[in-house]
Every structure is written in C-alpha cells, then in structure tokens.
C-alpha cells in the first residue's frame, strides 16, 4: 500500500514539478513552413542568440518536415539541416538544441548527423495512429545519447482512447515525453482538454501540446492543455509557423505569467527576440488567418499544405480552398503534399469541362 502511494507520488512529481511549464521554441522548424524553408544560416544564429538570452528551454531547428525533409515534395531549404544546426549550436549554452524527425521522410543517417552537430533532443514524429514505425528511431536517438520525445500529429482525427494507445507505444519505447500536435489547428478547447487530461492521467511520462492558429484558438487551446495537465508546450516568434502559424512564444510567456505558471523565460528578452530579431528577417511575412488557413482549420487538413496549395492553385488556376477541402475529403495526412498537385490537376480538368 505504502509502496503504491510512493509510486504515485513519484509519477506525480515527474509529471509536474510545481507550476513549471517547459517550452520548445520551434521558430526555426515549424516557422520554416511559413518561410518555404528559406531561413539563412545567419538568421538561425541570430534567433538562437535571442532564445539563449531569454532562457527558452529548447530550440528546435530542422526543415519544416523534419530532418531530411529537403525535397521536391516539401521544398528544398536555403541551407542544409547540418548548416542550420551548427549555426544554432554555436550560440546555445543553457538552451538545449532539438530536432524534429519523421520516419519515412528522414533516415537514421540524419539522426547520426544531428548527434554529430551536438543536438540534445529529438522529437520522433508520426501520424497519430502509426507510433509503431518509430521503434528503431527512438532506440537510435537514445543509443546516440540524445533525449527522445514522441510526437503524435493530427490528433483531432482520433479519440483520446486511441491517442492513449499510441502514446503508450512511445512510452514503451522509452521516450521522455509525448506531445500531441493539433497539426490542422482544428481542435476546439474542449477537444484539447479531453485529449490532454486523459493522457496526462494515464501516462507515466509528461504530456506536451502544440497548437496552430487557423481558428485563432492557439492561446486558448494551449492554456486548456496546460490546465488539463500538459507540462510541455511549443511557441514560435510572432507565431511564425505552418498555416496561420503557431502560438506566439512572447504572448504565451506573458499569459502563462498571468495564470501563475512558471517558465524559465524572461518576458522582455523574448519580446525583444520576436520583435527585433525576427521581424527584420521575415518582413511582411507575418502569419495570419487568410482564407486558405481558415479552410485548413475548418476542414481539419494538415497545416503545412497551405503554401503548396496556394502555388498549385496559381499554376492550375483553381481555388486553393477547393484543393484543401478535397484533401480533407481524401483524409490525407502529413507528408502527402504530393496529393495537392493531383487534386489541382483534377479540379482544373473539371473546370475546363464545365466551361466546354
């Protein structure tokens, strides 16, 4: 009995130490989507300096689709993952360097490269029903001496029960935390609460939540997740990210303070980073809820499709929203950017027929 009680306390401790929230800044990963992966090495170095100064826990740096995402399908970066990582590494001391990795897109060679660049943590990321393709990768990340987190994407598509089953696979493989990503920015706060509270209660490891702004619910959803037991979350400078973007880390820091949560982030420093470092780099490219992003949130489509759909829409003279809706109907998942072309070609054909 006593042992059981002690064990529960330990689990409790692992989940939440006081009111402390750990934050991953993913400006140089999710933000890559908004930049068509065109951050220069020097941009990454400057953002890293700002994050280190502000005391952010982790800085995630990779192609938007994770290590090895450089491709025709997802777009080639302005630099290699290795160049970006080395640039960030030089600037970081307290802030840990992280990468995102999708099995099937990147390979284990990319993980070894990351370790050689001095990466501290890797988020091994899959669609929310496919955790069992990550076994070899989680093992390698750990064998290489990096921290491994598991990430489930597009979590609006399945129930809390299914998410728990998948999160437990990650837990069995030995990850240090499991993140849920609302990749489409489709969840309402109730949906976030239901998922996070269920996993936070049933897992032995901490739970994280990653929001998107397509329905303007990113802050509300992040707070809902934290209130429901999440201890990890993500943000980006100015909310730079796929679709309408992510949770702005500077706003999140302020809101968390107001709620009485602790973070390691200095508010003024992170405001400076967002405003003085990022704004000159991105110019007018500040994410906002345009009609394509709104359709993504409304229809529940993978957020990083936005730019690709806009390009295809322009090329084939069709409406990007129709592309998104058809992608939603086909239940495509993250990584299937190639379907956008197929859908655009079909829509153009239909349109030509209608004109005839």
């Amino acid at each position, binding site marked *: 009995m006593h042992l059981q009680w002690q064990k529960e306390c330990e689990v409790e401790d692992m989940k939440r130490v006081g009111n402390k929230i750990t934050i991953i800044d993913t400006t140089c990963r999710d933000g890559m989507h908004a930049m068509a992966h065109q951050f220069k090495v020097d941009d990454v170095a400057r953002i890293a300096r700002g994050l280190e100064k502000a005391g952010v826990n982790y800085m995630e740096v990779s192609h938007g689709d994770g290590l090895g995402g450089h491709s025709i399908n997802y777009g080639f970066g302005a630099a290699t993952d290795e160049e970006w990582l080395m640039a960030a590494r030089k600037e970081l001391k307290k802030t840990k360097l992280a990468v995102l990795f999708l099995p099937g897109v990147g390979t284990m060679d990319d993980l070894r490269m990351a370790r050689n660049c001095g990466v501290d943590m890797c988020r091994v990321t899959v669609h929310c029903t496919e955790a069992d393709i990550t076994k070899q990768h989680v093992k390698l990340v750990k064998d290489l001496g990096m921290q491994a987190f598991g990430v489930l994407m597009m979590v609006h598509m399945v129930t809390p029960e299914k998410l728990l089953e998948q999160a437990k696979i990650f837990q069995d493989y030995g990850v240090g935390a499991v993140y849920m990503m609302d990749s489409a920015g489709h969840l309402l706060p109730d949906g976030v609460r239901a998922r996070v509270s269920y996993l936070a209660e049933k897992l032995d490891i901490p739970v994280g939540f990653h929001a998107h702004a397509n329905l303007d619910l990113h802050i509300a959803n992040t707070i809902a997740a934290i209130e429901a037991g999440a201890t990890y979350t993500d943000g980006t400078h100015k909310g730079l990210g796929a679709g309408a973007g992510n949770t702005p880390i500077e706003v999140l820091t302020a809101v968390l303070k107001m709620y009485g949560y602790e973070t390691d982030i200095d508010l003024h420093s992170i405001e400076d980073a967002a405003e003085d470092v990022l704004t000159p780099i991105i110019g007018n490219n500040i994410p906002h809820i345009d009609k394509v992003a709104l359709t993504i949130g409304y229809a529940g489509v993978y957020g990083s499709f936005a730019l690709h759909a806009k390009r295809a829409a322009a090329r084939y003279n069709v409406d990007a929203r129709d592309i998104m809706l058809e992608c939603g109907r086909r239940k495509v*998942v993250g990584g299937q950017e190639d379907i956008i072309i*197929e859908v655009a070609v079909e829509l153009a054909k239909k349109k030509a027929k209608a004109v005839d």
Partner: protein
Amino acid sequence: MKKAKIAIIGSGNIGLDLMFKVMKNPNLEMSLMVGRNNSPRLQQAREMGIRTSDQGIQAIIDEPECCDIVFDATTAQVHIMHAPILKKLGKITIDMTPAGVGAWVVPSFNMEENMDKDNINLISCGGQAVIPIIGTISRIVPVLYAEAVNASGSKSVGPGTRENVDEYTHHTADAIVKVGGAKKAKAIIVINPAEPPIKMHNTVFCIVEKLNEEIEAKIVKALNSIVDEIKTYVPGYTITTPPQFDYERNLVTTAVEIEGAGDYLPKYSGNLDIITQAGVRVASAMAERM
C-alpha cells in the same frame, strides 16, 4: 512445356498471396509451402491441398528435388543466410525481401537482361511501382534527380516494414539510381490510416537534364506504353496524374495508384500485390525457358 515446381519460404501475407498467384499461373506448380510452426496460414495452405513444412530452409535442403524455383518471403536478414544455401542447391531464388543480394529486377523494365541470374531481388513495393516510370524517362533524357513519394494504407503495412522503415527508403532510393538510372534519388514513405483504406499511391518527380516539346512527346508516348506493359501483370496499375511538365524547373511529375488483384489480400493492398505479381511474372517467364 513442363511446369516449374515452386516452394515458398515464409507464410506471412506475402507468402500466402504468392501461393494463390502461383496456383493460378499456368506455367507454375505449387509444390511446398514452408512456414512457422503452427501458423494458421500454414493450416490454411494444407486445407487447400498444399504440402507444407515447418522446418524452414532445412525442408529444401532435405528434399531439393521438391522445387525448381524458391520464393523467399522471410526477412532481409534471414534471406542473407538463405541465399548461399539455395545457390549451392542450384535453385533459382526470387527474393521478396529488401536484402538485395541478387539482381535487382522490375519485370516490365529489365527482366530480359536478367533471365540468366539465379537470385532475383524484387527491390520493394515502391520500387516496383516507380522504377518503370523513372527508368523510362531516363532512357529518353538524363534524370539528374528522382524522388518517389509512396503512400500506403495503414492496414496494408505489416510489422516487418513498420520495424524497418529505413530499410525501405534506403533500398528503394538505391534501386532508383541503380536500376532506374537516375543520378540521385530520394524515397519517402507515408502511412495513411484512412478508412476505407487508400490504394497504394506513388508520386514521381524527375528533374531532367533538359526539357522541350520533342522530349515531352517522347516521354508521354513511352510512359503510356510501359503502363500498358505493367498492366499485363498488374491490372490495377493506373496513372492518376498524367505527366506534368514544368519547363522552368525541368521537372516531370506524375502519379500512379495501384489496386491489388484481391487474390489472398484485400484489393487495397496494391503495395503488396505489385511485388507478388512481379515475383510470379519472373517465375513464369523463367518456367517458359526451362
């Protein structure tokens, strides 16, 4: 003509689907199914009147005359052990795993030049789907870079592939270069859990050395004829996006979808069907020459 006698090692999805296809093929005779102890699929084979063994490769060593051709539907690691044994026994081996020991073959594309080989490797499901396209283009104009994105239905991706996703991407990319003739390649695999399950979908991107209207016309014509050839052994192979030509980037993009024949596996398992169809195609062609 005498039928070629067939043994299959491995009683998983691939092994059973092969068995059904061998039984339907006029050039082949199903002789022995070798599987794991007490496997329900082995039982199923017995009920269909097929002789079975649970002795692994030893079953072939003990009775080499039971077969002319052996399909190895185990795993890459196991095939690496099997290959020298089967060679010594003088058997033609068709390797369904990504071990890649023998000649890498895509029937519609490079089977004829490999008919004298005693170990045929069928690369991967994605390789079977995209190499004919990439190879056809590279015979017309040099392909500087090829990229293949494979999406398969979650239900059709078995535990072997799930534990070895990297094996798939590496082996497929290597084969796109070695067999398909691209200078560089990348393979991507995405697993999609939609219900009803999606058919296997492959998008192929090729950056070519140059592009003009003459090359475009040649590519369109050659792709149509290779697809007709593939359809003779994989009827469910369909182009879903006709070739798109981007003159700014010298980029050719096309996509295909594969519906399975539904022999043992459900029709959505086009990813498995294309490789078992390819295997039986090679065996059947070899039988004709025995």
